[in-house]
């Protein structure tokens, strides 16, 4: 792990000097700002049951589906396309360090982008000065959910990037995987076949993998260790797959 910090620092630097990061960030903040404005408008018209933070975080999947592929698709695919992975791995750097360094840098950027939406709530607090709008429970819960679920989402992006030399393919694979996880899993529960006795264990497994349900729990202030463990174990598994994927490509290249 001696080289992890070197690679992490290098990757953060490369992300910060790359124009695509700023385009992605501007796009992200634009979309989130529009959503937030829409929420505020609906609140100004009539009183709503849920707090703005709750509604805001319920739409987390929109930016996740677009942002995560954009941020991660370049990482390993570009190294393989240019062949720089060869110069990287012929120093005493292990594949694990490379994957973790890239993962860490992207995850930090992901957190930074989401953290910047905190500005919306600060403005709301500053000008609305209404305590009802700023319920700290859902707010903290929402950000906690973003941080924990982001671990898995970014890992999926890194894994998709390890599969191909082409950024476009990696991006699409990542988008499809995230779409399947966030939208597809609840859809799976609608299958009538899952209701039979035989598939009961499968059904309970699928039920506990519903990302949107997890968000509900987090923003109610319920931090279930089972859910945290779901994301942590998922992250570790996906990262191991990425490392193995890279090494398998080397063996057969």
């Amino acid at each position, binding site marked *: 792990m001696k080289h992890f910090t070197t690679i992490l620092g290098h990757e953060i630097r490369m992300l910060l000097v790359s124009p695509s990061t700023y385009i992605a960030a501007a796009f992200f903040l634009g979309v989130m700002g529009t959503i937030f404005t829409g929420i505020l408008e609906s609140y100004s018209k009539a009183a709503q049951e849920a707090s703005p933070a709750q509604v805001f975080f319920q739409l987390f999947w929109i930016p996740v589906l677009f942002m995560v592929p954009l941020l991660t698709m370049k990482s390993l695919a570009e190294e393989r396309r240019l062949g720089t992975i060869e110069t990287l791995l*012929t120093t005493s750097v292990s594949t694990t360090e490379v994957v973790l360094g890239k993962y860490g840098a992207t995850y930090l950027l992901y957190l930074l982008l989401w953290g910047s939406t905190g500005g919306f709530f600060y403005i709301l607090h500053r000008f609305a000065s209404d305590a009802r709008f700023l319920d700290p429970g859902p707010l903290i819960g929402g950000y906690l959910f973003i941080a924990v679920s982001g671990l898995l989402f970014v890992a999926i992006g890194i894994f998709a990037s390890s599969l191909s030399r082409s950024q476009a393919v990696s991006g699409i694979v990542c988008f499809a995987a995230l779409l399947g996880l966030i939208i597809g899993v609840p859809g799976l529960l609608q299958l009538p076949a899952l209701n039979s006795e035989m598939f009961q264990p499968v059904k309970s497994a699928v039920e506990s993998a519903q990302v949107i349900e997890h968000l509900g729990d987090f923003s109610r202030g319920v931090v279930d260790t089972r859910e945290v463990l779901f994301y942590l174990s998922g992250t570790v598994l996906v990262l191991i797959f990425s490392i193995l994927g890279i090494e398998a490509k080397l063996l057969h290249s």
Partner: protein
Amino acid sequence: MPDTTPAIEVEHLVKTYAGVTAVNDISFTVGRGEILGFLGPNGAGKSTTMRILTGYLPASSGNVRICGLSVTTQPDEVKRRIGYMPENNPLPEDMRVSEYLYFRGRLKEIARRKLGPRIDEVLELCDLKRVRHKIIGKLSKGFRQRVGVAEAILAEPPVIIMDEPTIGLDPHQILIVRDLIASLRGRMTLIISSHILPEIEMTCDRVLIINGGRVVAQGTPAALRREILGRTTYALEITGDPATLPMLLAVVEPTLRITATAEPDADGFRRVTLTTENTAELGEPLLRALTNGDACRVRSISRANPTLEDVFLAATRRSWDVRSEDLKKN
């Protein structure tokens, strides 16, 4: 006491992928401070062998030891001792030259305090000072190539492996890279693969020719010439009847043979090519025998110096013949 283990030892190296044998039982040794030229037609297994030496690819069987350390059991130690420039010299597009060298230096575990002066040193050596703040993606091919060389020698490793370092360079840049390689002579062990044969001949102490994953010839360029070609060629421009020539030649050296006779030109001189298995200098006795008497007049005589190119072609052709015979037998 200086370490006397060879810098690189390769024993019975085999690499197969997907049923194709890329490297088939290669063995060679490179001594400390030696510069080895690696020759072979495209697809001969040069790059694969180099990648195995660096520990990037695992071998299917066989042993590779760098400075006495096994690549399989101590890959990290081996990688610290190698500076490697891969084929096509991959570089990140969006970094500055000095940033890239700093990053590579940190990965190669050079202390931060020593890294700055060392980067200045290699930039100077590779004539890169002018472009140190330029983005690598915007550099010309010659500069990129030199960035690759600078990166390979950055950590002053005892062994340097370069896969086609002079490909795509103009003669002036080739000269710079050649001088650079010459300046490393004696301090570092180098393996260089190249298609530019005069290049190899000028810089390398020893040449290894591989074809179809096998070593087909190895030795110094001069020894290879003797071994592979096994004959010397003379070109003459003479007048007179070519039919009387064999008699004259037999007196000088029995193995002299006429391989080609051209039509006489306007002045009556014709070009005759002779070959002999005798490697001694036959120019003078030949001249004396030919001018002795009125049988012919001589305008010029020259001894053809076979280039490494001829050796390379002969050696690879020979190995192809062997292979096609093998195929026929099976």
